């Protein structure tokens, strides 16, 4: 299901979808927009978008506290401002024609119209969305925006800060990227300027000084916060919003001497929000205290002097999965040992660890008796993080800090190209009742991070604790049956999860009560030559089975155990008993 991005701007709301989404036949990216205005024109007439902006036929009054306008038309010029006001004022409801509308329900009208237009444009279903929220939007308006989206029939899959979404739009976050950026969102209703330190998958939002009236001066001030007074360390300015015209880009570039990126700025926020759904690990620090180390000199790009460097340009060769998780490829496990899990409870080296996103987490509604006056719960690394592989499941365990009732668990399963990622809040109660955190991970490599949400913890605790599980080797499973009768025939069926080559296999018959430990405890009754095995395409081999009396086992062993790159496992242990 495609996830759409929504930017509920001050003057207009926009919904975007990525390439390959429901853009139907073309499969191209696209977007739709609607002015973020609502007019209650009559007892049964509510106008949304362009219709709401048209001059009214009768008397109109701006939206105000409940009861302000019962008889006249009520005009809401910006539903976003209404949502912001709902967090500040207790009486932000809109009253029109003797009806009262909550700010969320008014905003939902705009979002519903947006979804309708998107459905018409894509001829597809529009349900899952990621909402972009401006910096400083606050928890209250953010929650109201989410409720509005849900009231509009949308399923909110997540939220992302608008400047971070802009970075994602420009591909300015990712492996090997180390950039100091200013994001300038210029809209009809105002401007928002943010300074960001991007260190691969970690984004620090740096507080900017009071913004000047002049756009150039404001951007310069923001750039100075991260790039020095002469903006020497500022890599680029990213433009977003309807007001980010070509003229603005030229003016900024000439005045600042810094590359200014402008590519479809009007859809930058919504498009970035849509991209964030499939982006995977991303950690955003909004505490104001930088968590990232200074840009590593060793990774300075040889193309740093290029006039207009691409923000997404990788400044070092892509690292392997093992390098990124801070270790080398594990040696092949010995036959009776489980593949080791690498664990680090202390902050791992910055340049080697993929860090997940961190957002300000509001713990779920009171699940414990934790004191309320200790401040908001902040993420903090956990001690003794450990992962145990149970074939296609992983069990995570860690030490819970005192007073902590929730932890954030994030994971990436598989490689970055075809992997999937996710996060959840694990409550202490569930952890203790279920004996850890269990997740189905398949047989591929996996990376996990865990942060405890601790009330009153230090705002800058460092990176989350991380642990990795190595991938399991390709597996060939076999099932053995023996037909009864005068001439016994054995049948081995081999199947594999992935395309692979299996080695020469000895089928061993062992008489006795106990499962043979190796081929030396029985008689080789058949040898299957090594061959290629296609994924989920069974290979069946038949062979005569000599006579035996009493309990007996038929087991497959690699003819040369040292020559095996695949694991040879029985489908069922007890079914190997044939007598």
């Amino acid at each position, binding site marked *: 299901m495609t996830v759409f991005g929504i930017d509920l701007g001050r003057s207009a709301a926009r919904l975007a979808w990525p390439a390959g989404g429901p853009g139907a036949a073309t499969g191209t990216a696209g977007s739709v927009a609607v002015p973020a205005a609502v007019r209650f024109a009559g007892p049964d007439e509510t106008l949304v978008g362009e219709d709401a902006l048209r001059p009214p036929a009768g008397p109109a009054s701006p939206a105000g506290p409940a009861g302000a306008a019962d008889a006249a038309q009520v005009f809401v010029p910006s539903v976003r401002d209404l949502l912001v006001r709902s967090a500040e004022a207790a009486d932000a409801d809109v009253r029109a024609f003797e009806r009262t509308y909550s700010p969320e329900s008014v905003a939902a009208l705009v979002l519903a119209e947006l979804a309708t237009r998107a459905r018409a444009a894509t001829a597809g279903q529009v349900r899952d969305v990621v909402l972009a929220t401006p910096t400083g939007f606050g928890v209250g308006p953010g929650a109201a925006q989410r409720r509005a989206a849900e009231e509009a029939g949308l399923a909110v899959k997540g939220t992302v800060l608008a400047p971070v979404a802009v970075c994602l739009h420009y591909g300015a976050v990712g492996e090997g990227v180390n950039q100091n950026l200013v994001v300038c969102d210029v809209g009809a209703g105002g401007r928002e300027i943010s300074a960001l330190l991007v260190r691969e998958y970690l984004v620090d939002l740096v507080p900017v000084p009071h913004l000047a009236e002049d756009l150039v001066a404001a951007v310069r001030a923001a750039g100075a916060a991260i790039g020095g007074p002469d903006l020497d360390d500022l890599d680029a300015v990213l433009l977003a919003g309807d007001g980010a015209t070509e003229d603005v880009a030229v003016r900024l570039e000439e005045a600042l001497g810094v590359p200014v990126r402008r590519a479809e700025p009007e859809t930058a926020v919504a498009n970035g929000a849509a991209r964030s759904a499939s982006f995977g690990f991303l950690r955003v620090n909004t505490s104001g205290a930088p968590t990232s180390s200074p840009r590593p000199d060793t990774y300075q790009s040889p193309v740093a002097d290029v006039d207009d460097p691409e923000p997404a340009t990788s400044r070092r060769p892509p690292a392997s999965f093992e390098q990124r998780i801070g270790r080398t490829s594990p040696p092949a*496990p010995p*036959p*009776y*040992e*489980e593949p080791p899990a690498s664990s680090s409870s202390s902050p791992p080296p910055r340049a080697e660890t993929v860090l997940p996103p961190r957002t300000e987490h509001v713990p779920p509604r009171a699940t414990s008796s934790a004191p309320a006056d200790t401040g908001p719960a902040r993420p903090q690394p956990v*001690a*003794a993080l*450990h992962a*145990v*592989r*149970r*074939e*296609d*499941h992983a*069990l995570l*365990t*860690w*030490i*819970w800090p005192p007073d902590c009732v929730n932890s954030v668990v994030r994971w990436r399963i598989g490689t970055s190209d075809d992997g999937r990622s996710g996060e959840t809040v694990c409550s202490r109660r569930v*952890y*203790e*009742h*279920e*004996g*850890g955190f*269990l997740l189905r991970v398949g047989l591929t490599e996996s990376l996990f991070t865990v942060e405890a949400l601790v009330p009153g913890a230090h705002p800058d605790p460092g990176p989350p604790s991380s642990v990795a599980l190595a991938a*399991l080797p390709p597996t060939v499973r076999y099932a053995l049956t023996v037909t009864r009768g005068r001439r016994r025939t054995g049948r081995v069926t081999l199947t594999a999860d992935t395309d692979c080559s299996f080695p020469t296999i000895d089928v061993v018959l062992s008489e006795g*009560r*106990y*499962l043979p*430990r190796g081929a030396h405890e029985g008689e080789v009754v058949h040898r299957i030559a090594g061959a290629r095995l296609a994924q989920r395409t069974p290979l069946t081999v038949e062979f005569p089975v000599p006579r035996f009396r009493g309990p007996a086992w038929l087991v497959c062993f690699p003819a040369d155990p040292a020559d095996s790159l695949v*694991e040879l*496992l*029985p489908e*069922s*242990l*007890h079914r*190997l*008993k044939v007598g």
Partner: protein
Amino acid sequence: MPLLRKLTRTPLAPKPLTCPYCYERFPIRDILFRCNTRMSRTGRRCVAKTDGILEERTGNRRELGPVFSADGRKTTAVCPDCASETRYRVCPVCHSQLPTQFGLVDNLLIAMVGSKDSGKTVYMTVLLHEVMNRIGARLDASLLAADEHTLSRFRLNYEESLYAERRLPTTTTSAGTRDGRVDPLVFRFSVRRNGPIRQAPVHTLLSFFDAAGEDLVSQESVDLNTRYLANADGVLLLLDPLQMPGARQSAAPDTRLPGVGARYDTSVGVLTRITDMLLSQPGLLNRGLIDVPVAVVFPKLDAFRHRLRRGSPLTVEPPAGPRFDVADSLDVHTEMMGLLRDWDGVQIDQVMANNYRRYRYFGVSALGANPTSDAEVAQTGIQPYRVADPFVWLLSELGAVGREGRG
């Protein structure tokens, strides 16, 4: 065969009941009643006083109403002294108050035995906690304490201690030091079963008797528990691999090893004495083999996790279906047979094969990790692994839960 004995063997003859507290057998009509000492309609009231039999059998010195006999097949009776109607039914032998529905629903007695320091109490606590929570959700079943004493005792002495205070329990008191008394925990296990027309809950009373390891170090001490073992419907036999010579050497480094010496015993020794005792009970034999289902549980599996090869059923997440998974259980049984051969030779397996008709091996880990040297649970908490498998197998053998597959 005498006619009376023949009659008692017919299916229509009422099955004798076994008290879940003292494990004595009696017919249902022998159940006694205890006056509730409330004012009756006649204005009379019985005086509560200490029950001598109850005190002698269980050590309970509480002042209670007098015991009187009435038709034990009924659930209520009228006190002959005060005319008050009472619902308190008591065991005719030990005078313990019987659980609600006793005699009306299945009554299964499960004895747990094992060598000293094998972790029986920890295992039982985690098992019951799991059945009350995770496994209960899996089986769509509930487990409730059947009496106030069990409720408070399990919560305070077992669950709170292990889960909240993270302390391992101290050594269980020997029956020998308590005048031969034991103190079972009695629960009501309810599970939804598919009937011919609709799903209906099926209730079973479960009595858990945790024998002290010290009670199994000599034949004389085993005899103290004869009544409990002989009348049990199923036995959980814990054999500690860390007390087996081959396994001790291959345990993970820093594993807390149980003691050795005269106060301790080998697993074979414990199994031999229990087998001897059960063989001496003629009613338990079927074609020369002991018919009571015995789940042979090898705890502390976490100490050997590093030794298990890939593909072992003890390295995978156990099935989470609502029924007992026979194929998975047989895989574990096969795997444990192999491990047992490496740990302690084939003696245990041969004893089981030649003396028991229904038995199965299980590998479990109650804590999931090595406890600390201060006898505390690891700081990462309790991660039980397969602890309920033996219990669910016993219940499936006794018909209390369904099973998936044959075997």
